């Protein structure tokens, strides 16, 4: 799920860049030195996760993980996602440098919201954490798909069909993301629960 170069009008691209700069600024403001290794690992996972392709009929879709990034990093997730998308556009030719702002906005906003939501609903037990992880992952992907569709619609009427197709194509991704998110969160809750507290020093 990436917007390619030259699809969006200039105003949307510029606005995306401006908002991305704001988001990265907020991330840097709330950055704790003790969290740096965690952010690095999550960024690397996010970067690589887009290579996990799920065959789906004629096309294939890939994991996105905005929900999990948000749940793990909280307010630092915007920075992580921007770096990950930047490297993806450089090395994998996913999206493009001019569309980087819009892409980061598309993935970063759900991550921020999901991080906040995850902290609200995670509860104390392992099951409730896993359910919250699944929910947050699914919602994150859904929001990213919605933002993608909205951005594509600003590009003109030609992209309405594309937007609809993108929405439909991401329904299985939402399911898979929810399963992956539940797995990751329940595993982390068992092995290293302090990782699930965004912003807290992870020892």
């Amino acid at each position: 799920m990436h917007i390619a170069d030259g699809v969006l009008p200039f105003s949307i691209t510029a606005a995306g860049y401006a908002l991305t700069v704001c988001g990265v600024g907020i991330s840097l403001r709330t950055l704790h030195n003790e969290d740096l290794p965690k952010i690095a690992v999550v960024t690397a996972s996010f970067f690589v996760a887009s290579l996990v392709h799920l065959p789906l009929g004629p096309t294939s879709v890939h994991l996105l993980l905005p929900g999990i990034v948000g749940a793990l990093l909280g307010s630092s997730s915007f920075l992580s996602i921007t770096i990950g998308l930047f490297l993806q556009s450089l090395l994998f030719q996913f999206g493009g440098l001019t569309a980087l702002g819009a892409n980061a906005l598309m993935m970063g906003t759900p991550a921020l919201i999901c991080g906040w939501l995850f902290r609200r609903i995670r509860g104390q037990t392992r099951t409730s954490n896993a359910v919250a992880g699944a929910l947050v992952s699914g919602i994150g992907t859904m929001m990213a798909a919605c933002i993608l569709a909205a951005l594509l619609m600003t590009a003109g009427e030609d992209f309405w069909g594309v937007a609809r197709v993108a929405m439909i194509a991401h329904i299985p991704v939402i399911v898979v993301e929810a399963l992956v998110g539940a797995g990751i969160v329940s595993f982390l809750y068992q092995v290293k629960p302090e990782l699930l507290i965004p912003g807290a020093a992870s020892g």
Partner: protein
Amino acid sequence: MRLRKSRRVVHLVFWLSVSMLTVPFTGWTAGQQPAPESSAQAPERQRDCAAVLAVVEEQNRKLQQELRHIKRELTLLNQNMEKPGIREVIAGVGFILGLFGAVALFSLRRRFRADREA
């Protein structure tokens, strides 16, 4: 795997070009042959022409088939080249870890200096 495939493509292209190089010469030799002018041989000539035409068309079809095959292989090769490989993954992960390592180093240094001054 990729290398072998590209070598096969190169071979095919080479033989195709060689066979195409011979085409003008065959046409030249055919043109050099003295044409029999008597009217009694006209139907025979026509039959010859039809035979030659059939052969040429057959060759054309074969060539086209092979060209299509080569084109398909080329697009496949292009697709394979575009797919990010393990090298890109390692480069990206290394970049991320290096970036955050550098940030951690600088922040640690700053704190170290502050501690010493305090």
